[in-house]
């Protein structure tokens, strides 16, 4: 604190005190700010930054789970290598590409359904009716239930012999014989999607509901006076106004869906027909003990998610700008 303290500086009443030019208080505050940030930044470096770099490093080595210290640098061999007339590596593994496709399919379908149902539920909750608080509490229940538990609950309801879903469908004559929802490759992905949609729709609904409650009332009064059909009002007025909230909900859900693990692990375990990228990477890492190969898959997953996020934000900004013009 060698510089002169400018205590005589005029004290403006309104602007933030933090804007004062280099006063003692200001410098003290900035220094304190970094002290306060330090523990958090150190923790995040330890659990996120450093491990991410190590994962990237491992992906270029032949590290194994039992011996992560003594490793050999093998370049891109975990990703792709041409050896003895054949291609090897994650990028040459059909199971990996199957996992990529499964994850993309799962993400697009479940997030679309969640947004659709989420908007419907939000519109219901936005209407004035008796017992609205109770209904909102009921809608929150799926969100509160741990993913593992909801996967187990649905696994039991979807059980091929004693499951209530097959029982109900057969009682109403919709299907003739029981379906092995989680074991049959042609249904298992839909079972997974169904559980995810059930669990995540409340989240989307809450975000949309928050946006709906901030909408100006006068548009709706004007539309009602003009006798415009509510469906038309929804598409022409409501939907454009809640688009920003929807985009936020979509990015949150999309990031979650792209790294999906728990639901699939419990419902269908390691079956290839529903294997996601996270399941694939963890299987290589932990079950096959191949840290190098698994890290290569993890790194690819990270890159895919980063690219998807950037592309989404870029397109989203463009669209919002177009909408604003």
């Amino acid at each position: 604190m060698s510089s002169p303290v400018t205590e005589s500086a005029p004290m403006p009443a309104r602007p933030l005190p933090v804007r004062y030019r280099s006063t003692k208080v200001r410098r003290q505050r900035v220094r304190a700010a970094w002290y306060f940030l330090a523990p958090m930044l150190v923790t995040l470096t330890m659990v996120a930054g450093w491990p991410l770099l190590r994962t990237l490093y491992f992906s270029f080595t032949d590290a194994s789970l039992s011996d992560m210290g003594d490793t050999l640098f093998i370049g891109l061999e975990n990703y792709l290598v041409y050896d003895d007339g054949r291609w090897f590596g994650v990028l040459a593994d059909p199971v990996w590409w199957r996992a990529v496709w499964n994850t993309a399919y799962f993400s697009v379908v479940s997030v679309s359904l969640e947004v659709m149902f989420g908007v419907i539920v939000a519109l219901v909750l936005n209407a004035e009716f008796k017992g609205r608080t109770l209904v909102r509490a009921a809608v929150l229940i799926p969100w509160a239930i741990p993913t593992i538990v909801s996967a187990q609950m649905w696994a039991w309801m979807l059980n091929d012999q004693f499951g209530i879903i097959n029982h109900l469908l057969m009682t109403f004559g919709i299907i003739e014989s029981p379906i092995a929802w989680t074991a049959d490759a042609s249904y298992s992905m839909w079972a997974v999607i169904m559980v995810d949609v059930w669990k995540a729709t409340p989240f989307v609904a809450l975000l949309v509901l928050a946006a709906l409650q901030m909408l100006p009332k006068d548009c709706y009064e004007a539309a009602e006076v003009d006798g415009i059909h509510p469906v038309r009002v929804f598409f022409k007025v409501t939907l454009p106004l809640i688009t920003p909230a929807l985009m936020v909900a979509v990015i949150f859900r999309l990031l979650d869906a792209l790294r999906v693990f728990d639901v699939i692990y419990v419902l269908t375990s390691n079956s290839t027909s529903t294997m996601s990228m996270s399941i694939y990477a963890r299987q290589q890492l932990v079950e096959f003990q191949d840290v190098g190969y698994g890290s290569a898959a993890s790194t690819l997953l990270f890159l895919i998610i980063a690219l998807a996020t950037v592309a989404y934000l870029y397109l989203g900004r463009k669209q919002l700008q177009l909408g604003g013009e």
Partner: protein
Amino acid sequence: MTSRQLSKLTARLGFWLLVAFVVVVAVFPFYYAIKTSFTPSSELFRVELWPTQATLANYLQIFSQRSFLQAIFNSVVVATSVVFIALLLGITASYALGRVRFRGRTTVLLVILGVSMFPQVAVLSGLFEVIRALNLYNNPGGLILSYTIFTLPFTVWVLTTFMRQLPMELEEAAIMDGATPWVTITKVFLPLMWPAMATTGLLAFIAAWNEFLFALTFTLTDSQRTVPVAIALLSGGSAYELPWGPIMAASVVVTVPLVVLVIVFQRRIVSGLTAGAVKG
């Protein structure tokens, strides 16, 4: 009845049917889990909507297992510690990010946002190494450490939003009285931040309580597992003869506290979730 009245009536009827449908879909799986948990295992092959016989046998069975009780204990310890650490680091960091204007603030905020988007698998092998190096493998401590990766960014983000909304005058008064930033936080802001901290703490608790991937990977023995892993592994090795009664009983036991929390703190959770998202 005129056709106008009729159409109004159908609209009302349709609306209530929709409400009923939403409630049934949301609640039924949980109801059915509760129903199954009270059904004797000999009756499970009979598919019924309503219970005809009730038994506590499934609950007695899971509570007689030491490993399940231990898992509940581990989950409570892990989730509570994670909440405590996230709030402690979060409140100081959010003061810096929400109240002080300094160079690099935007970068720090972007880094935090970036970390919250991390796929957990992407850090799995690196984190495994860190946890083993710290001798925390197969130890709740390793889980507490690793869970900060998703609770901390979120906590900081939401608390920063709340911190910004507090009136400037409070802090000006504190500065005029010569209070240091630390005193300002603990004496001026902390008392006002309780609602926000309750919200974020609750959300962090739920997230930590439900986490599965790290818990599965960083623990090895029954005595160190948390509840989600214990429930996922209750199914045992064989695909036949799953102990559905006990699985459902265990599921109900770990879910009821969460459902009660969510219903009691409904408003708070909704505001926390939207505060975290609106800025996203």
